[in-house]
């Protein structure tokens, strides 16, 4: 009797906390989920119907399914690999510290870091900067990547090269005007463009920045307009074959001398206009969920590694030795001995991740920009958005919360049962 009193006295604070902050809100939320947004009218299961018929919420449920399907398994697998490998490398402490470090950062901060790394502009986003430097080696950007033809006389697209539409014969002048060239991209040493004089037995021409303040007259070489030096110009025969090529001078002029009788076209090849790597749209609608998942795994892999490494250290060495003595290969020892012995630890990691992933929220809101938060939506984020973040529908928000609670519940019970078994 007295023992009960003591127990009660000790339990009382915890019970009060539980009752006030867990039990009462849970009951209240369940009740609230059957009322409309004002909380005055009973609407039955309408909110739950809305949960499965609103596109936005269905996306959230689908995304959560992806998270649950991919993340716990991947985190456990990566953690296992790291744990096993770090047992054998020399710098294991340094390696483990590096992998575990992200755990010290809050998910929100980690999200902000990845948001910045994922930016599309390779000048800003680290991931795309890395890809850009790789791409720059394979196919470098052209000198005039932003240029466009200044008049319709120049046909084709910058992507496939520009061709002067009018056929040229000996004595003709080819004027290849380009615009939309940022001042910073005008090649160094460019001088005032010159309209070249025709020559009797050849074809002359000019490639120039057909723009002066105010616009000027497109197609005409005017003062204040700069020649574009260093541009490779081709002379093509009617079949489209390149018969000669030359490079423009400081004033943009070029000349093909001793040209045979016939019709030709002047062209600038596509390599001049090759666009620099624009960056992968990591934060775009298509890739946003995988991008967020990568960031999340980066944070949690360390946790998995440390827990599994602790489990690994506890495995009796003699069992492994015995397996090796019996002639098991390293892989067989790992598959048939290490993993089964680690199973309890692996399941702890897996289940912990499962519960975490069902409730995932902060990293999604931090990584996904406003324009793709609908595509990156998860249940917890949808719940917050619906209740507080603008929609202000506490009825529907409560229904989402209850739905999430129901999803987490079986995993939770499983975990509790395991705890009991272990005690």
């Amino acid at each position, binding site marked *: 009797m007295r023992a009960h009193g003591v127990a009660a006295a000790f339990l009382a604070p915890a019970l009060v906390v539980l009752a006030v902050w867990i039990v009462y809100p849970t009951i209240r939320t369940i009740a609230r989920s059957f009322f409309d947004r004002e909380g005055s009218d009973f609407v039955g299961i309408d909110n739950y119907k809305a949960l499965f018929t609103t596109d936005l919420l269905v996306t959230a449920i689908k995304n959560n399914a992806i998270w649950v399907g991919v993340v716990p398994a991947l985190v456990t697998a990566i953690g296992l690999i790291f744990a096993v490998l770090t047992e054998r490398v020399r710098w294991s402490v340094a390696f483990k510290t590096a992998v575990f470090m992200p755990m010290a950062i809050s998910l929100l901060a980690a999200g902000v870091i990845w948001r910045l790394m994922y930016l599309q502009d390779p000048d800003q986003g680290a991931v795309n900067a890395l890809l850009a430097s790789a791409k720059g080696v394979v196919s470098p950007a052209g000198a005039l990547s932003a240029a466009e033809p200044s008049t319709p006389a120049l046909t084709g697209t910058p992507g496939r090269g520009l061709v002067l539409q009018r056929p040229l014969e000996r004595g003709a002048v080819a004027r290849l005007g380009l615009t*939309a060239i940022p001042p910073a991209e005008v090649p160094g040493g460019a001088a005032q463009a010159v309209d070249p004089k025709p020559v009797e037995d050849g074809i002359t021409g000019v490639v120039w920045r057909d723009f002066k303040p105010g616009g000027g007259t497109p197609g005409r070489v005017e003062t204040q307009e700069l020649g574009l030096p260093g541009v490779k110009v081709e002379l093509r025969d009617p079949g489209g074959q390149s018969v000669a090529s030359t490079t423009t001078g400081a004033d943009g002029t070029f000349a093909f001398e001793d040209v045979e009788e016939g019709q030709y076209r002047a062209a600038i090849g596509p390599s001049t206009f090759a666009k620099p790597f624009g960056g992968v749209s990591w934060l775009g609608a298509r890739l946003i969920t995988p991008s967020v998942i990568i960031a999340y795994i980066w944070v949690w892999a360390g946790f998995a590694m440390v827990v599994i490494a602790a489990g690994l250290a506890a495995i009796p060495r003699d069992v492994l030795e015995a397996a090796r003595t019996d002639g098991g290969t390293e892989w067989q020892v790992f598959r048939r001995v290490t993993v089964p012995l680690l199973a309890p630890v692996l399941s702890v990691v897996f289940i912990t991740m499962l519960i975490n992933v069902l409730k995932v929220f902060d990293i999604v809101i931090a990584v996904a920009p406003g324009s793709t938060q609908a595509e990156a939506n998860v249940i917890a984020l949808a719940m917050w958005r619906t209740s507080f973040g603008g929609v202000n529908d506490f009825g529907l928000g409560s229904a989402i919360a209850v739905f999430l609670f129901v999803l987490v519940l079986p995993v939770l019970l499983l975990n509790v049962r395991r705890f009991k078994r272990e005690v």
Partner: protein
Amino acid sequence: MKRYRYHALALMGLTALAVLLAAVAAGGTASSPSAAPKVTAGAPGSVSVISEATGPEQKSFQAVLARFQQKTKIKVKYTSAGRQLVTILSTAVQGGNPPDVALLPQPGLMRDFANRKALKPITFLRGTIVRDWSPGWLQLGTVNKTLYGLYYKGANKSTVWYNVGAFREAGVQPPKTFPQLLQVASTLRASGTAPFSIGGADGWTLTDLFENIYLRQAGGKKYDQLAAHTIKWTDPSVKAALRTMGQILQANNVAGGTQGAVQTDFATSVTQAFSEEPKAAMVIEADFVAGVITGSTKAKPRTDFNVFSFPSIKGSPPSVVGGGDAVVMFKDTPASRALLRYLATPEAAEIWARRGGFSSPNKRVKASVYSDALTRQTASELAKAKVFRFDLSDLQPSAFGGTVGQGLFKLFQDFLKNPNNVDGIARQMETAAARAYKK
């Protein structure tokens, strides 16, 4: 001895409990200024205020409040909610424990709270507002024929900010009409600078652009009808405005292309247009752009950046799409009333106006108090506009007009990705609007 120990233990348990309960109670009173109504007449009392303002805005607003405290001896407790204002207020109202006074950025929110009977009428200010504000503002502060909101702060959203250097380089002048704007855009493009920088990751930058076009192209009457959803979003006037908007949103008109613009947030859209190597020449957004430019770039007003009014479309009169923060009262106490009366005076507006980043819709505020020429210009346009309309998306139910990732924000972002899909977007907008209005 044993008995004594038992008592001690029980006592410890009870003490813990008492401490806990006291903490709960203290937490209750600390966040609830419900003590205020109990002050006896004559005693100064206190008032709690919450608003979105953070950073320099918060400092300015606190300077305004400090003057009030100094004059009346009423203690002001200010809380900054930042972007979480809606969350914090909804939760506080739902929990029956709101602050005394709040600055609400959206009329939709005010209507929401008024309909939930959370707001107290401010009829005692009616005379002042009729005298010192233009009629539109009284209307905006009224829900179901009762006055709830005092528009202390205004915002002019019909401004276009431009990079003076980029304009000089391209040899163009600020346009007056929409065809001129498109002409300027094409010249800028030829000069190698993207004409527009669009912060598409924040949906409200796009709704603001649409509203400016719609008000000029369809006129104030249609604007009101669309705002009240008495005409549909599939109306020909909406589609025509979307087509006009599409002329601006062409991929080669926008810094980073439209796909890049969808991922550019508002702050970046401003800094990238006014940094030392500008990526674009113009930002079509409200008067508060000036604060972002001066705050995060080295650009100086007039020499590096300047402003013009959103151009007229087909001879439309000077029109302003505006925003504003309404002061509302959740608790009717003498201290709350005193604060609202004070905020309705020109003096309260002039303190902030002098500090910059503020436009007052109060007609009695002198233009000379504004800290710089550009603010004076945007503020006087706000006061003098022939046609003034409140930001349309802010007038919508917030699930449709003010929530990240859904409703108008999301659909305009989809439109930015594909500006030719006028019919499809209009249809989706109507579906989303119908759902939001049904509730």
